């Protein structure tokens, strides 16, 4: 039940796609590298060698999880955004000078879209391939825009807003058939679903630790052996000369532990999260004039994106927040922009509908009671906002 005025609201976090709390087991794995085993992994003496061993152990553990040919195909970065930027710019800068065309999907994260747009201002031609209304990119749609001079294709593995999973193996094969490299942003999918770089056939992939109960400020970039890459971070030549800078050893140790836990717990945690997600979807869809965004089945286990028509997303978010519930929205008003989420627009969601979106994402510490509380709290909020709306009855022809 919603708390009364005299009770501090309970705290229900339903924004795990934004970030996750760092798991205590991960913190424990990191702690020694702050205070006792603090060496620079590039130093030759014992303390440095110890740090180097820890770094390489983390790399090997993660490389095994994603099934690389060699641990050296995994380079540590400062986070998912850096990995995306490095992939887009580093792979195109090193491409054959005759390949001056790149393709990205319309619902990529801005960490891919913005460097793609930057490249378009610096000598590359950019083509944007759109998902269908179900939030899935079709290989034939990608094939239709590929050219003989396409250098790089970037399509995310699982969309961070609507949660739809893309047919990456087919998309990568389609790109390769025209001689283009293929990068996928897997920041939202690593650890949540099986991710095997050899099975998917990708040349590059982006990962982020804080999406899987690891620390913020560390990510990784998979670069298939032999892939030409122009580094943007230049200096001491760390990370196989692909990303200079003293490595974040505690972060790497934490990232590897976070992924190990994800892999270990996925067989039970995946279905548990999917069940919570489905309860959220079914519960919201039980309200009239609501809709689910993105394919119902081909989606990540933790993401539900829903429209509550006749309500503005930020208003719902703030009302839920007053009850201690944290969610996200693709409404324009929450972003400071006047355009609603580019992801929702890309799947054909009309702007007047997209303003009413809620992204509700579950995770390791979400309980059935949390979902109950959300599902109890939302209907009266929707009713209040719809009653306050001058157009709800006109648009939808019934009462709130």
């Amino acid at each position, binding site marked *: 039940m919603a708390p009364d005025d005299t009770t501090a609201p309970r705290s229900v976090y339903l924004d795990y796609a934004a970030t996750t709390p760092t798991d205590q087991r991960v913190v424990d794995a990191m702690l020694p590298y702050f205070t006792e085993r603090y060496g620079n992994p590039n130093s030759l003496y014992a303390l440095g060698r110890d740090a180097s061993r820890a770094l390489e152990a983390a790399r090997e553990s993660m490389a095994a999880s994603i099934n690389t040919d060699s641990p050296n195909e995994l380079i540590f970065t400062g986070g998912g955004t850096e990995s995306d930027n490095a992939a887009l710019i580093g792979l195109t800068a090193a491409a054959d000078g005759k390949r001056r065309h790149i393709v990205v999907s319309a619902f990529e994260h801005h960490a891919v879209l913005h460097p793609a747009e930057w490249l378009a201002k610096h000598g590359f031609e950019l083509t944007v391939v759109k998902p269908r209304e179900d939030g899935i990119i079709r290989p034939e749609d990608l094939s239709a825009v590929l050219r003989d001079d396409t250098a790089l294709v970037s399509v995310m593995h699982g969309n961070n807003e609507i949660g739809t999973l893309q047919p990456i193996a087919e998309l990568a094969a389609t790109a390769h058939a025209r001689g283009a490299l293929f990068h996928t942003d897997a920041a939202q999918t690593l650890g949540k679903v099986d991710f095997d770089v050899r099975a998917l056939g990708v040349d590059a992939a982006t990962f982020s630790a804080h999406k899987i109960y690891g620390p913020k400020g560390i990510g990784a970039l998979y670069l298939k052996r032999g892939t030409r890459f122009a580094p943007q971070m230049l200096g001491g030549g760390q990370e196989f000369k692909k990303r200079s800078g003293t490595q974040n050893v505690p972060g790497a140790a934490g990232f590897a532990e976070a992924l190990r836990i994800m892999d270990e717990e996925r067989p039970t945690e995946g279905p548990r999260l999917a069940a919570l997600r489905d309860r959220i979807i079914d519960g919201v869809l039980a309200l009239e004039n609501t809709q689910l965004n993105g394919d119902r089945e081909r989606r990540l286990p933790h993401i539900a994106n829903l429209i509550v028509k006749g309500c503005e997303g*930020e*208003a719902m978010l703030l009302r839920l927040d007053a009850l201690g519930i944290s969610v996200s929205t693709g409404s324009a008003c929450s972003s400071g922009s006047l355009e609603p989420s580019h992801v929702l627009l890309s799947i054909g969601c009309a702007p007047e509908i997209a303003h009413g979106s809620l992204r509700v994402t579950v995770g390791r510490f979400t309980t059935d009671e949390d979902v109950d509380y959300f599902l109890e709290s939302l209907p009266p909020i929707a009713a209040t906002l719809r009653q306050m*709306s*001058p157009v709800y009855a006109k648009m939808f022809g019934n009462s709130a």
Partner: protein
Amino acid sequence: MYTDLVMQHFQNPHNVGVLEDADGTGEVGNPVCGDVMKITIKVDDDRVSDIAFQTLGCGAAIATSSIVTDMARGMTLEEAVAISKMDVAEALGGLPAAKMHCSVLATDGLKAAVDDYLVKHGREPISGGLAHDDPDFDPHAVEPETGETCEVEA
């Protein structure tokens, strides 16, 4: 992002509803933009004697609707249409720059209601036009005479 006063007006907005037998009605905004505001007024001796609003929109849209109805109650029609977006933002203790268009929506809704009353009574509108009807309207622009944003600390 929002001041405490914005949040108070958002959580407990004043003057919500539609006045029966309203003397003037103003409806501005567009669902495509995410904001629609309807203001109804009763007029007595050329003063706003009663006022109510309905708003589809974000926290700032609802808060600016609430405060502009508080501000306009009891004002003469001339005073009511003279309320500026900066007046609204300042009354709320500030608004983020990206939300200034919400205060324009509130003042436009009020102007539209006053003009509706005047036209219905065979008089000339006094608002001088709505900001939203101006093709050059920049919802993020600040009042040029102050040169200052009305943004609060992040």
